[in-house]
């Protein structure tokens, strides 16, 4: 028996509809990563986080707690929990993560901002209007909730006069570039992942890293958005040699993340298989998605080191905080 599907999805859908985000994340917490970076508000080109890096630790924490309900009699309580959640936001109880973990994730946003600055690419940020892109509602088939939310995003981007968006994770890239424009025909902003923007700009290498690693491609970058050559070109120029697994690039193997809320133990099995494949190629693993990072790290043994691509790129292209 999985976690009760309809009640869990219902809770997330209710949160998105009523509170604008699938998981509890105060506006302050979502913007905290910008501290001291002096990123201008709005502008024609904005860095759009879609709150994915900020939410990933909460998703991870929620998975841990939901895993305890898998197959348990307490599952029956979920219908009740969903009804209560409409009145009082209960998800913080389920999704509490540690401050250190949250910081580790949002530090990746700081990496990305530094990389863009070092490459001379001007960008603004929407601060409280940097909304979650709604991927969960879309993927789980909550189309009414998803379309209503997409309209909010469209309104916000129009109000700020945004023409170009630089995204920082595969899911937000896919939602803004491929999914929302199909659902809302007047939605027209140019959407590029920061990896594509940086690869195009080819900024000078400040420090060659001279090391080897393996790359875990996210399914969404690899098979939905075709972002494969860009991370590799940036890593290669920065001095990282990749030992590729057989299942990489267009044949990449999922981290198991998408099943983590509803089927935590199956999700962990997939993650363990993926970690084993990667470890066989090189125990130093590079990811490019906060959800892949969280899900693979959850099961990796201590001898496997998993880090985000921005950790490498910032060392090669924008070392030492000025």
């Amino acid at each position: 028996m999985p976690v009760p599907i309809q009640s869990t999805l219902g809770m997330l859908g209710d949160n998105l509809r009523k509170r604008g985000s699938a998981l509890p994340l105060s506006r302050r917490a979502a913007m905290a990563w910008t501290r001291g970076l002096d990123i201008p508000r709005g502008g024609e080109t904005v860095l759009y986080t879609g709150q994915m890096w900020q939410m990933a630790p909460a998703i991870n924490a929620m998975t841990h707690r939901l895993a305890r309900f898998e197959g348990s009699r307490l599952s029956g309580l979920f219908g009740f929990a969903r009804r209560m959640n409409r009145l009082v936001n209960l998800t913080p109880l389920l999704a509490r993560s540690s401050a250190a973990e949250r910081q580790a994730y949002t530090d990746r946003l700081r990496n990305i901002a530094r990389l863009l600055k070092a490459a001379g690419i001007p960008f603004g940020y929407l601060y409280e209007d940097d909304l979650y892109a709604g991927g969960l509602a879309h993927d789980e088939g909550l189309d009414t909730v998803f379309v209503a939310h997409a309209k909010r995003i469209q309104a916000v981007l129009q109000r700020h006069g945004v023409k170009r968006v630089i995204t920082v994770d595969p899911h937000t890239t896919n939602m803004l570039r491929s999914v929302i424009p199909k659902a809302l025909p007047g939605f027209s902003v140019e959407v590029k992942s920061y990896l594509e923007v940086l690869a195009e700009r080819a900024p000078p290498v400040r420090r060659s890293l001279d090391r080897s690693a393996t790359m875990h491609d996210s399914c969404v970058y690899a098979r939905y958005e075709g972002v494969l050559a860009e991370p590799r070109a940036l890593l290669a120029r920065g001095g990282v040699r990749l030992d590729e697994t057989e299942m990489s690039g267009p044949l990449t193997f999922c981290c198991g993340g998408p099943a983590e809320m509803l089927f935590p133990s199956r999700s962990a099995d997939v993650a363990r298989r993926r970690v084993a494949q990667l470890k066989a190629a090189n125990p130093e693993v590079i990811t490019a998605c906060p959800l892949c990072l969280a899900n693979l790290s959850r099961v990796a043994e201590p001898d496997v080191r998993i880090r985000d691509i921005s950790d490498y790129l910032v060392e090669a292209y924008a070392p030492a905080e000025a």
Partner: protein
Amino acid sequence: MKVDTGFLESLRLGGEFDARLCMNCGTCTALCPLGLEILPRRLFRHALLGDRERVLGESEAIFSCLLCRLCEANCPAGVHIAENVRSLRVVLNGEARGLAEA
């Protein structure tokens, strides 16, 4: 088996349901990280035949799919497997009272 002719129509409304192209070769199941046996081949057949009950009874498989598209990258018939699965979710959510709407 009870055939529901409106069922396929409701699937089309949920997304792009193109499972008709499937030639039942089994490549998808062989590659699937979850080894989903029912998806997409059998389940899609049930859907195409309008066997609503059988489809609704498989919600666990439908909601566990990772939408990872590893199957799709290798499907010789070019079926949009992940989008088909998503369409089934839309329909299932509509069936569960109050989930899609307020």
